[in-house]
């Protein structure tokens, strides 16, 4: 981060080389010096643990029950892909990410951002407040609130009762839908903020020109605004995808992955293997798979962004 700081004018930041100043190579080395503590800290506290994790994924390390740890090659990975619970978790994770992030948060965030352009100030403040409140809450608190909302005798069913609609046992009959909705509720604020900023940056002349050419509101959105903010959409998609992939607290508080394994996404499955079955090696292997899934999504988005730039 320190290297990004702009050099204030007149303090040697200009590329003018005075007599007796060090050679460029040495000088850039000297300039890099302040970053050394940060690099060391990152290496020790970030790269170190990650390297360890990668190593553990290829061992049979256990939390308890075995004193020794042996290198087992790719056994953990072959075991995972033969494990029906793992495949189930993989499928639910994709469902959760596509349903709650790519479709839910992204679309709802965009829709709110567009609608709020024309809204009056009080309405805007109110909507912003409500949406952002969900974002500000700690994940576990949000999870608990959603549990209270969805569970058998929760507020949603009370509402349904009040209007004489049949009760639904959300957390029991369709837990994955319930956690998806909860994640949409919790995460939409982020998309809303990204899109509001992006739409505000759309040059007003462009929109006005389109209006002059007779484009209706729908066409203006579809043909002018959306193409201009496309990079923001892709960046937003990438960020919320990565964030949703690692959602743990929300699901754990609401359903613990159950009933059965009907809402057991990869992070929950990983936790259960590592800490309830004490299989640290297997758990870390699943964490690596999760990392790869995230990387794949990112690659797709980055390629789309690149195409945009070309």
């Amino acid at each position, binding site marked *: 981060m*320190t290297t990004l*700081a702009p*050099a*204030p004018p007149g*303090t040697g930041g200009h590329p003018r080389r005075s007599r007796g100043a060090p050679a460029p190579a040495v000088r850039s080395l000297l300039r890099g010096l*302040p*970053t050394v*503590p*940060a690099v*060391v*800290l990152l290496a020790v*506290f970030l790269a170190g643990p990650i390297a360890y994790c990668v190593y553990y994924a290829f061992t049979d390390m*256990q*939390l*308890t*029950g*075995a*004193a020794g740890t042996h290198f087992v090659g790719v056994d953990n990975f072959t*075991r995972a892909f033969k*494990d029906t619970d793992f495949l189930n978790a993989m499928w639910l994770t994709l469902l959760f990410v596509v349903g709650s992030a790519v479709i839910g948060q992204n679309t709802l965030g965009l829709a709110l951002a567009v609608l709020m352009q024309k809204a009056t100030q009080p309405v805007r403040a109110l909507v912003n407040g409500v949406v952002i409140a969900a974002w500000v809450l700690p994940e576990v608190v949000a999870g608990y609130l959603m549990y209270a909302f969805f*569970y*058998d005798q929760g507020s949603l069913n009370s509402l349904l009762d009040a209007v004489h609609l049949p009760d639904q*046992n959300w*957390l*029991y009959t369709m837990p994955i839908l319930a956690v998806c909705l909860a994640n949409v509720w919790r995460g939409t604020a982020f998309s809303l903020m990204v899109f509001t900023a992006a739409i505000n940056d759309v040059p007003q002349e462009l929109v006005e020109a389109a209006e002059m050419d007779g484009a209706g509101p729908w066409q203006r959105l579809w043909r002018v605004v959306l193409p201009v903010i496309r990079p923001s959409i892709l960046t937003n998609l990438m960020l919320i995808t990565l964030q949703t992939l690692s959602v743990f607290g929300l699901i754990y508080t609401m359903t*613990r*992955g*159950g*009933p*059965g394994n*009907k809402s057991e996404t990869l992070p929950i499955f990983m936790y*259960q293997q590592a*800490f*309830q*079955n*004490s*299989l640290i090696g297997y758990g870390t292997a699943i964490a690596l798979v999760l990392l790869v899934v995230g990387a794949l999504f990112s690659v797709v988005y980055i390629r789309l962004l690149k195409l945009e730039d070309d």
Partner: protein
Amino acid sequence: MRSRIVTAAAFTAATALAATGCGSGSSGSSAKSIKVVYWQNLDSTNKLQANFLASMVKEFTKANPGTKVTLVPVTASENDYYTKLQLMMRSPATAPDLVYEDTALINSDIAGGYLKPLDTYTAKWADWSQYAKAAKGAVTGASDGKTYAVPDDTDTRGIWYNKQLLQKAGIAVPWQPKTWADVIAAAKKIKAKLPGVTPLNLYTGQAGGEASSMQGFEMLLYGTPAGDKSLYDASQKKWVVGSQGFKDALDFVHTLYSQGLGPAKEQALGANFGTAVGTELIPEGKLAIDIDGSWMPNNWSSAAAKPWTEWQSVMGTAAMPTQNGQAPGSTSMSGGWAWSIPAKAKNPDLAWKFLSTTLQTKTNAAKWNATNANIAVRTDVASDPTYLNSVPTNKFFTELVADTHYRPGLPEYNQVSTAIQKAMESVTTGQASVDKAASTFDNDVKAAVGDDKTAEGTS
């Protein structure tokens, strides 16, 4: 600007180093202090153990001036408590000096190299001869025969029933079912006569953790004709798969939940259902029959979460029958908790001193068994009137010890237990048929312990 950033970076580095340095410094505690870890269950109003331990610390520090005993309660569900404990014991920087754990975990923690053998201490401790043989067996290493813990209680399990509700449903009390069919028949009667009352609770599913495996499934499984060999065959050293007994026990669970004889599924599968049973459903008369442990009165004592003195006249107890009433007629499961010294403890000698001269003297052991309504493991305490009279049901549950079973104290048990919970949950929810769930269990066990360590059950 730049110099400020440098300063900031240097400061960050310095504080980070200071913090880590500080961490290792303070963990190297003086020879006069120990750290004692125990489980504070999620029901935070239950302070029985916290209060008892606090009084023990007071007694110990008074007798040994200058020493310091730090109590570290871990507030978590039971499974999470063990995880936390194991993570603490793993590293010398965080290892406590004395830990409290279920005897079922002792063997996997021995295999993990977390515990210190205590033979040199117990050899010089006169009180050790007072401990029951079975209890000593539960804290002995399966591989090396050494002692790794001092047990402080045991427990048995049976049937609790609400006499008033049973009478209303037309069932004569005292009630003692002879077979599983009798239990189901009674539940059906209650369902027919008393709407709004849950007829029968048997813990199930993954959220219940060991309560599902032990109070729930194994109370059935060990009552099948295979008895002690229904889960693990000690003579062959093999885990049993594919047995009819296992399917029968699963079928019982399935009957219970599919016919609406048990609690609502979503309620039974909730994480804190055990607490609800003891503090709400039973005292409020909403549950007629509960297959549960000897410690239930803990919930109702005057110091507990839900003081309920009427329980002594309202609640009855019965032994859990075997499947078809075959000998010995009844079955029970036992476990119990014990104190261990981690291998990486910094101050094992002082921890032992606290354990042997304060926590586990005859007087204090009796006090603890009476306070916590559990079954004594010391013969001198078992005959102590303070203990015997402390809870009216102590005598009944102490007698169940005759036909009780201990879980296979092996490192793999934990994974087998999870597999049992999974199988139960899938038949409870109806996600899988009994046969499907049983075969999933077989595969899970084979994956966990290895094919060569399993054997097909004969009955």
